[in-house]
């Protein structure tokens, strides 16, 4: 910290190429969001009639109204929240504890179990669609939130386990051993010591899972047909007609509606990461 404050102006100047790089990275990342927003306000004739970077001639707020009502975005929102929140909680809880069990606990089949979880990372998920559909049909789970939740959890687990075992590998064993010496049970070790210390990684992994679930189309489209059960991403398909014609204005309005909360969630989780960093620094 002290070092950086003492940096001379010269050193700052040498940072100009770096700053340019940063600006470029920010530009290519932020402009698309801006573009989606201006596109969501364009009229039907502007998408091919004016250049992509042009501002809307008039503000077509009715695109949002149509996305919300005709596009049923309000229903989809509720469904997305009702499926993503439980899925995310479950996948993180189950995945992190499984990784802990595999990496920290000492048992014979630990390596084999990692491998078993790894298989699904390799297999293209499209392949399990037919068997799963048959299973959900037999158990009457089609068109329910539960079907989506267990699918998201199962699809997310391999990744959480894969990454968390990686993080637990670098985890200091002495801390755990010391705690056990002090008489802590293994569950106390998990909840009070291990979990807080890998919180950064947990939040990062949770973030990835959130985007996977929130942006999923394959699972939700396959296991739901009732429009009342659809999630937000399927809303983006609402303005495509039977001959391939697409109404881009309302589509982009739908996109903007779905993107807003994701950005908020990201900002919130990002705060958590920073807090985790700060508390880690205090402890260290």
């Amino acid at each position, binding site marked *: 910290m002290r070092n950086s404050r003492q940096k001379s102006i010269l050193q700052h100047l040498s940072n100009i190429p770096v700053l340019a790089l940063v600006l470029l990275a920010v530009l290519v990342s932020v402009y698309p969001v801006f573009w989606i927003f201006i596109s969501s306000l364009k009229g039907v004739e502007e998408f091919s009639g004016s250049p992509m970077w042009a501002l809307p001639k008039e503000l077509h707020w009715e695109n949002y109204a149509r996305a919300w009502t005709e596009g049923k975005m309000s229903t989809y929102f509720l469904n997305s929240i009702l499926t993503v929140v439980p899925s995310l909680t479950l996948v993180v809880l189950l995945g992190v504890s499984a990784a802990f069990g595999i990496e920290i606990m000492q048992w014979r089949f630990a390596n084999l179990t990692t491998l078993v979880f790894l298989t699904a990372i390799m297999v293209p998920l499209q392949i399990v669609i037919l068997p799963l*559909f048959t299973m959900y*049909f037999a158990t009457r789970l089609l068109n329910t939130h539960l079907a989506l939740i267990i699918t998201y959890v199962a699809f997310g687990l391999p990744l959480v386990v894969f990454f968390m075992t990686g993080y637990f590998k670098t985890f200091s064993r002495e801390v755990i051993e010391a705690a056990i010496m002090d008489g802590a049970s293994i569950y106390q070790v998990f909840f009070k010591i291990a979990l807080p210390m890998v919180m950064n990684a947990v939040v990062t992994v949770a973030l990835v899972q959130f985007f996977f679930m929130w942006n999923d189309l394959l699972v939700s489209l396959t296991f739901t047909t009732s429009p009342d059960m659809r999630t937000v991403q399927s809303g983006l398909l609402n303005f495509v007609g039977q*001959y391939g*014609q697409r109404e881009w204005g309302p589509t982009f309005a739908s996109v903007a509606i779905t993107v807003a909360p994701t950005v908020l969630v990201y900002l919130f989780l990002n705060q958590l990461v920073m807090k985790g960093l700060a508390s880690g620094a205090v402890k260290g």
Partner: protein
Amino acid sequence: MNKKIRYTALAAFAVLAPIGLMAEAQSKRVVFLSVQNATEGFTGVIGKLAAEYSKQNTNVAYEYQNAPQADLAQKLQLLTASNSLPTMYNVAEPSLLMQLAEKGQAADIEELFKQYGIFDKLNPAAVALQKSITGGKLLGLPLELNIEGIWYNKKLFADNGIKEPTTWDAMMAAAAKFKTAGIQPFAASGEQKWPITRLINGYVARKYGADAMARVAKGELKVTDAGFVEAARAVQDMGKKGYFGAGVNTLDYGSAQDLFLQGKAAMFYMGSWALGSLNDPKQNKIGAENVGFFNFPTVRGGKGTRNEWSLNTGIATAINPKQNDAALGAWLKYVFSNYGERALTDNGQISGFKVAKLPANLPALTKATLAKLGAAKNAYLWFEAKFSNKASSVAGDNVQLLVTGDMTPENYLAELQKALN
């Protein structure tokens, strides 16, 4: 002993009676799995009629379900695998619909409608057309009746001193003239693929006559025959000469249509479902009065004539025979006795159902198109109508390579013939 039996009977009655009572009051659920939005097109009309019916008959509940067109084939496979197809459902590929009918999953609508006395609500020409798609049986409801041809910009034609072409050569001469004048001759969405295969289709229909593709299906013609090669080459030439403009394969449906509607392209092959956009002043910048419509031109040495039009009934809507009962019958009777009129008055949609009298305020362009439809002497279907799913997919994928010159006409057709075998 006797007592025991009596108790058993009593117990059985106690268990069964409520079920029997329930069955009597049981409500019928009519579920429609559609590719359209709930309020759009035929789905909107059916939804409105169903709501009216349910008001009077509270025992029938109507439910709309949705599968985007891109996922429809997959969804139908899955639903069939679990034997859970809904009451009515869309099917995009005729070959799939015929398979479903074979499996007892799609009803013979002629039988069904005769059973409920509403077969006469259907327009016989539309029925014949629909039957020709699926091997002589009526398996889909003709909820739309579309006519396809070439829409053109009258003003651009007049400005360049060009008349409505009646022959392929005249159309190509017109295209060349537009090209030199710096106007894109045709707007077509290569991204959608079918707008290009339709041109090959039109050409062979003029070359061999309206039954060209039907004869391919029967095995009397092969798509590797000389006339097909000539057709594929003619379309490829259009691409090579730049008549479709730059980047035809990247152009989506809306952009292609806009090229025409914004006066940047002179001609546009499309079906009458585009009338909604053509009549919409917000989209149509050249003015509906400047839009003309002509049939696919004749080709040199061909048997086909300009009295034969490419017609279709839109995406097929099948009925699941397993859900056929009196309650469904009454529902069908109400909804489809009123469908034709409502589709036309509410949506301006021409359908395969009879309409007693035309609404007074139809747009001029729609009226003119209806007149052409009425005067059609003979009809032919779209290129892939009788293809297997695989062959349709091959026809569409490879046509992108054909039109840019990355695949020879011979190879295009050889690959297609292979997929057809």
